[in-house]
């Protein structure tokens, strides 16, 4: 358990390079839109979802209705449903409270790391907890530093550090393209997500492209099985 936990933390560390600038930006933005330091940090502690926090803070600053902000949060985070479903076969033997605890820490990066571990070896809750905890603490700490620095520092995302996220995902994606179905799923997701990002509002492209490409992959695999 401890060994798995440590290896989750270790794999999470390099990826934190990509999270810290977003956390800093999150803290700075909270102050900029007029939230108190405590509220800004509390949002990171309770919500722990970067993209929706940025959108919510923008809406709070613009004086949007609370219900609308919560609904928008729900829509932005719909992709978690798909991630949860894909983790379910590995997690359903765990006690429900443990599943709930691990689900709270499931963000894009920790999900990707956990599934990469599944691909290489097998699922382990200790590994997932190690990833989750290092990301959670880094997110809260960097939001807090952002709040303290406020507008005294320049936007950390302008340095190009936001590139760390796609770079890390590329490293986790490549090994999945070795088989033909994986490569086709990737190609389809690329086309649909780019078209969606161009023509659909908000973040709809993520969930639509992921659904379309993964269902197509499942159907292709079903056909191959039937042909054998």
């Amino acid at each position, binding site marked *: 358990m401890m060994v798995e936990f440590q290896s989750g933390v270790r794999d999470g560390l390099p990826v934190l390079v990509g999270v810290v600038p977003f956390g800093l930006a999150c803290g700075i933005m909270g102050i900029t839109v007029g939230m108190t330091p*405590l509220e800004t940090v509390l949002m990171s502690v309770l919500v722990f979802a970067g993209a929706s926090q940025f959108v919510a803070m923008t809406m709070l600053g613009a004086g949007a209705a609370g219900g609308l902000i919560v609904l928008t949060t729900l829509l932005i985070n719909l992709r978690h449903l798909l991630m949860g479903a894909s983790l379910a076969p590995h997690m359903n033997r765990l006690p429900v409270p443990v599943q709930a605890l691990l689900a*709270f820490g499931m963000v894009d990066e920790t999900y990707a790391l956990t599934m990469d571990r599944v691909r290489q070896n097998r699922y382990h809750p200790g590994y997932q907890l190690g990833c989750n905890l290092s990301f959670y603490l880094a997110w809260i700490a960097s939001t807090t530093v952002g709040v303290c620095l406020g507008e005294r520092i320049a936007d950390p995302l302008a340095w190009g550090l936001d590139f760390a996220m796609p770079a890390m995902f*590329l490293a986790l*994606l490549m090994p999945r393209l070795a088989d033909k179905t994986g490569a086709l799923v990737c190609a389809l997701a690329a086309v649909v997500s*780019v078209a969606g990002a161009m023509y659909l509002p908000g973040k709809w492209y993520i969930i639509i492209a992921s659904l379309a490409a993964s269902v197509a992959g499942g159907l292709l695999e079903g056909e191959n099985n039937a042909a054998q």
Partner: protein
Amino acid sequence: MLHNETLLVIAGMAAATFFTRFACLALFSRSGVPGWMGRWLKHVPTAILTALITPALLLPRGSLDISTGNHYLLAGCVAAAAAYKTRSVIATMTLGLAVMFALRWINL
């Protein structure tokens, strides 16, 4: 100081986000995942990773930008090659970010 209105919004956001993260686990925790769904879900990581990466590289400012002025696309190509060759997260991020900073520095 805490504003009640903002606190309520934060609580609502926390509930909505946790719902999206836990709903599917709760749904399948007793019954398990049916076989046809397992075949589908197997491809979810590839699909989600691609859907997060591609627009970030091709539309870094919200509109399609396929040109040498798009630093995200150039650094992305280098990172993809590094990922293919090394299979290492650290090597991919180091090389990708190095190219990104270099492009910013010389401001191509």
